[in-house]
């Protein structure tokens, strides 16, 4: 039996891992389809980093659960309702490179600030994984931020398309900061930190880049989709899982 604190820690790790894995799965859809060779390689590299981060957190989650589960069980043998990723990362990119970069940028800025806090976690493994992940995330944000500026301050078409991406994604950013009693328990124990504490800094970060990109944050949003923490996902998610989990479910004895 896990203690309440271990249960919370296990859930906390799965949330981070799920978010990185599902984001990576979406980004990896560009492999072989990138707009230019360099970006094709870039996106495969970014996806690889995110999968690596997910593996670290899954492995730790499994270690806490201590019942023989492995990272693969979490990734390939759970259903839709068991995944805790935010809705934003599962949204399909529909081959719109600007949409992918905007998503990477918005989520990346959040991850950057989250990992910066988690580096101070009293849990040694969490702080170690955070210190590792933040270096990669910093590089991703730098890359995605450059593209947001280039496309936003580019041609009329690129501006319109990346502004549309921002309009579509913005309502989903609210969910990034969502937290519940799992977080509260970990915050009390110095393992995690209040996400609200860096919300204004996040807003400042994205606003700074949007100003350079001549993009504006949509106003008057009244609907902010949510559900990831409870495992309630968008209609797109089942299809993503079906593709991602096909092989290990079809061939249960397959090994790496």
């Amino acid at each position: 039996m896990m203690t309440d604190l271990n249960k919370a820690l296990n859930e906390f790790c799965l949330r981070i891992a799920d978010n990185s894995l599902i984001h990576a799965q979406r980004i990896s859809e560009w492999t072989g389809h990138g707009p230019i060779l360099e970006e094709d390689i870039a996106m495969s590299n970014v996806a690889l980093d995110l999968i690596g981060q997910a593996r670290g957190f899954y492995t730790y989650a499994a270690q806490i659960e201590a019942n023989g589960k492995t990272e693969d069980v979490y990734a390939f043998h759970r259903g839709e309702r068991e995944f805790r990723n935010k809705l934003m990362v599962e949204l399909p990119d529909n081959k719109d490179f600007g949409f992918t970069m905007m998503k990477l940028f918005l989520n990346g800025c959040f991850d950057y600030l989250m990992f910066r806090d988690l580096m101070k976690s009293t849990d040694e493994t969490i702080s170690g994984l955070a210190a590792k992940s933040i270096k990669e995330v910093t590089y991703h944000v730098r890359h995605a931020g450059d593209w947001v500026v280039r496309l936003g301050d580019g041609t009329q078409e690129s501006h319109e398309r990346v502004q549309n991406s921002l309009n579509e994604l913005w309502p989903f950013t609210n969910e990034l900061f969502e937290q519940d009693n799992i977080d509260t328990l970990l915050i009390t124990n110095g393992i995690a930190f209040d996400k609200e504490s860096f919300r204004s800094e996040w807003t400042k970060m994205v606003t700074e880049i949007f100003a350079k990109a001549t993009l504006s944050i949509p106003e008057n949003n009244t609907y902010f989709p949510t559900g990831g923490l409870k495992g309630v996902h968008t209609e797109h998610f089942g299809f993503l899982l079906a593709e991602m989990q096909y092989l290990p479910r079809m061939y249960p004895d397959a090994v790496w």
Partner: protein
Amino acid sequence: MVTLELSEIWDLLNSIPDPEVPAISIVELGVVRDVRVTDSNIEVDITPTYSGCPALKNMEEQIRAKLLLVGLTPLIKTIYKPAWTTDWMSDETKEKLRAYGIAPPEKLSFENLHPFANNDKGPVACPFCSSTDTSLTSRFGSTACKALHFCNACCQPFEQFKCH
């Protein structure tokens, strides 16, 4: 019973080339963090360069194979703390990279730690002709740890080991 000296084990590990950049060893790369000899066994700590580096598994297998030759079956642990950095490479290792045709990483600076900081340290010197008349082609290269550059002086594309 482990009969080898600790330094001999390090020497063995230092003879394993990085599978992606064979000019340097996995010890020079900084992936092997610690080796401990216990009464009955040997423990090796390794750390990934990048979280998703696909070569880590191969490095682990090579360590196993190399130590098995001297009758050892090591317990290999992956650790994350402290996080791997290119600053662990010695000047000698960096020179090996350059001689191999890969521009070595610069020293990590504070600017690397923030995504928006101006991290323009000027052009990277071409490993072939040493010219600094070069430009960045792509932040991402053939492996997680490298970026692509182009030398305008000798018209050669080249890779740089990213500062990380």
